[in-house]
């Protein structure tokens, strides 16, 4: 991958990630996250992970982010106060984050010898066929367990988001009235 492609793309990716953290409007945060995920998908293409790149755009930038945007618009949030009213604590958080970034970069850079290109990849590396053979071969049990996990997640999401839940909130006096007026559902 040429530096002329990598560095601008990495800049856009990091700027979008900063936008997720720093913007006051949750919708803008979500759109920044879509942009960051899209940049990552482009990196995946250059790293010969074509199926993963396609899944990244379809599952993440498509389905998951649409879910986020639905919830944000459903809650009808006004812009909140961004980083909050305690800038000192945010400053500590940013310093700790910079420290984590520095130590991670140092550790990961020393893990790879500079200039080493690793092995020569076969022509079929990263194709759907190879990945599917591995998923349905070596990782078959994990794959089936994942399907069970998705089923549990679907059932859990429906139970949690159901409107007439029987859990008790703080406004216990308001709950019976709300339940009775929405009984037809």
């Amino acid at each position, binding site marked *: 991958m040429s530096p002329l492609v990598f560095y601008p793309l990495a800049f856009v990716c990091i700027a979008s990630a900063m936008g997720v953290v720093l913007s006051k409007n949750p919708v803008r945060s979500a759109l920044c996250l879509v942009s960051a995920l899209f940049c990552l998908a482009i990196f995946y293409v250059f790293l010969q992970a074509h199926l993963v790149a396609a899944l990244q755009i379809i599952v993440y930038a498509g389905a998951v982010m649409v879910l986020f945007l639905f919830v944000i618009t459903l809650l009808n949030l006004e812009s909140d106060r961004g980083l909050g009213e305690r800038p000192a604590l945010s400053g500590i958080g940013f310093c700790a984050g*910079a420290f984590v970034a520095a130590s991670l970069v140092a550790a990961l*850079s020393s893990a790879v010898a500079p200039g080493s290109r690793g092995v020569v990849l076969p022509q079929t590396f990263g194709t759907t066929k190879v990945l599917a053979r591995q998923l349905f071969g070596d990782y078959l049990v994990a794959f089936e367990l994942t399907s069970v*996990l998705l089923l549990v997640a679907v059932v859990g999401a429906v139970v949690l988001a159901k409107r007439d839940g029987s859990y008790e909130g703080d406004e216990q006096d308001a709950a019976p009235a709300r339940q009775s007026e929405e009984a037809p559902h």
Partner: protein
Amino acid sequence: MIGTAHFLALSAVLFSIGAVGAVVRRNVIIIFMSIELMLNAANLAFVAGSNSLGSMNGQSIVFFVMTVAAAEAAVGLAVILALFRNRQTVAADEIALLKW
């Protein structure tokens, strides 16, 4: 020439940005997006390692991480909806019911 170390460094930076976002923001939805960002940084490291080692295992694990992240997003957003319905807020510091 861009090597594996560059991708790993980018992944570290993205992970740190996500960690900072999960710590400093009050909005539960933004915290959630920061967690997604951290998962994606880990995915980038997996794909870069897979490319450098010539092994498909990294890409298979990315597949599983994506599935778990999608399930987590569905359940987590349902929790946020239930929370907002009960407390009328998504600010993390106002949700202190379990705080001693």
